[in-house]
């Protein structure tokens, strides 16, 4: 099956007074209809910038300098702004991290959902509002008729994020980018939102790019996972396989930072205290030419320090890793 989204060698550069600074370097991944890819990694590794690059909404100063972004075969990175506008909100949409601020406080929820429908599907006001109402029901907002005329400040955080989802999916996009959609929400609400996304995806066949810190959610809903570090993809593959046997020391570190709850086991059974990865992601403009993780890596040796960044290379069936010393898993 041809992928809905294929990002190929995407390179994004920030132009600064001190010269151009690489933000994303030769990033490649793809996702098929009805499937989910998760982009994971620490803050500052380029996850959100990847999302904004796909949407064509990068802030001033950031620009794609190489690579392609194909949406159903069409290179949208090279598209005219007007073409991109026509795709945004219809074939391609996005939900953001902060439901509290992502909705316009001075317009009703219904108006904001109907807006995209009126624009892209040329629906009249009444028809668009009817569809907006149907979407509110689809995202399981109770008393949807009343909520249609509510303002964002009258809704809870979880409800606002449901509204965002309704808004993003109103035109039945081929691709949905969800940038940490649950970070700002209560834990119980988080699970509900992920369940909802999954159900709507099954119904509409939407491809999802999920950006998240929540490895539990990744395990639950992502088919594939791409681990980003300092603007590069350092490990990629089938979610189950990557999570069961991470090959890059950074991926392993990320897993180690996640608490695992086992039913019937006491809290401190098994792995002992939660581990952390020492050090920080190198900031923009200070990324070394060698493996960017080398100075935080327990396995780094002369090879890592003397050679340029290792390329992402195949490491088993539908697996790739960028490491000079990938973890060998015999099991």
């Amino acid at each position, binding site marked *: 099956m041809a992928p809905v989204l294929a990002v190929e060698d995407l390179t994004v550069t920030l132009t600064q007074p001190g010269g151009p600074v690489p933000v994303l370097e030769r990033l490649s991944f793809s996702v098929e209809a009805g499937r989910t890819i998760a982009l994971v990694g620490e803050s500052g590794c380029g996850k959100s910038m990847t999302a904004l690059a796909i949407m064509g909404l990068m802030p001033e100063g950031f620009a794609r300098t190489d690579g392609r972004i194909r949406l159903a075969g069409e290179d949208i990175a090279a598209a005219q702004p007007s073409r991109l*506008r026509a795709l945004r*909100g219809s074939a391609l949409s996005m939900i953001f991290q902060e439901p509290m601020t992502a909705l316009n406080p*001075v317009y009703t929820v219904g108006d904001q959902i109907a807006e995209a429908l009126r624009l892209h599907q040329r629906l009249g006001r009444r028809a668009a509002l009817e569809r907006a109402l149907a979407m509110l029901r689809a995202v399981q907002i109770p008393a949807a008729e009343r909520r249609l005329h509510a303002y964002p400040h009258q809704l809870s955080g979880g409800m606002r994020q449901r509204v965002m989802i309704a808004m993003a999916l109103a035109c039945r996009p081929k691709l949905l980018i969800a940038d940490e959609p649950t970070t700002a929400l209560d834990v119980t609400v988080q699970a509900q939102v992920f369940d909802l996304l999954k159900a709507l995806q099954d119904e509409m066949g939407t491809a999802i790019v999920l950006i998240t810190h929540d490895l539990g959610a990744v395990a639950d809903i992502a088919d594939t996972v791409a681990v980003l570090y300092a603007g590069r993809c350092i490990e990629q593959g089938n979610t189950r396989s990557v999570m069961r046997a991470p090959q890059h020391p950074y991926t392993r570190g990320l897993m180690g930072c996640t608490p695992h709850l086992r039913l019937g086991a006491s809290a401190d059974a098994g792995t002992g205290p939660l581990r952390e990865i020492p050090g920080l992601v190198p900031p923009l403009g200070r990324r070394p030419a060698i493996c960017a993780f080398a100075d935080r890596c327990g396995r780094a040796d002369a090879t890592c320090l003397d050679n340029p960044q290792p390329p992402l290379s195949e490491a088993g069936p539908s697996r790739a890793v960028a490491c000079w010393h990938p973890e060998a898993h015999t099991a």
Partner: protein
Amino acid sequence: MTGLRRLGATAANAAGLLLAVVVLNFLLIQAAPGDPAQVIAGEMGGASPEIMAEIRTRYGLDRSLPEQLATYVGKVARGDLGYSFFFNEPVSRLILGRLPATALLVLSSLGLAVLAGAGLGILGARKPNGLLSHAVSLVAIAGNAAPVFWTGLMLLVVFASLWPVLPVAGMEDVATPRHGIAHGLDVAQHLVLPALTLGIVYVAQYSRLMRASMIDALNADYVRTARAKGLPERIVIGKHALRNALIPLVTMVGLQFGQLFAGAILVETVFAWPGLGRLTFDSILRRDYPTLLGILFCSALLVIAANLVTDLLYRLIDPRIRAGRPA
């Protein structure tokens, strides 16, 4: 609390404020130098002790202070603001005669300030580091730094002697009286310079304010959401950003309405505009207390009314201020 009840509370507040102004006005009369009877007699051109006594009885000056206050409040409530001996007319009629000219001037200046200020601010905000944006900031600083009387005088110099294309005094051409549309055009022509003088400072202030709040709004998450929906920039700015960016501007305009009114005194004097400001200036020079107090009361009334309008506009623009019934 429902919207109607809230509105009622606001109106009650305004009424209370107005009463306070009336009482303060009354106390100001009491504080005026000398015996009020003497002041009145002086305005009438001197008097004998008998006439002084008669004045006291006639104006109730022989009664106690609370009694006098009650009389005064009652009179003001009936629209009786006293009598101007200098202009030989009831103060209320004097003020009502001058009010339209001032209203025209103040509202034109306000319109100019809001439209030009908001327009320039929006232009400046679109590219905050662009040339246009810096130009707007520069104009704003210059406009803000120039005092009203100086701006007025400079405009007079330019349009009276260097390039005499606009009338520089009065409200209409007295030499050739016109009617209908011709009269309207004549007044409009006379209005240009005073309105510009009065409004330019506010154009400067509002453009700065609007630029800042528009930049804020354009960086807000909901604007990113609007763009992610594929909306054209015209709607992103004109619908999503503008309405949010207008909120601080509305506040500012409401707060400054009183200042604008005070500015009119100066401008009307410079351009011989026959409005309340001019009347204020004249009555200060003549120590015409009844007129002055009447104007004071009237301007308080207008400022309070302006604040009420601001409050209403606020509610219209920002649903968060409206009665927050849970959805």
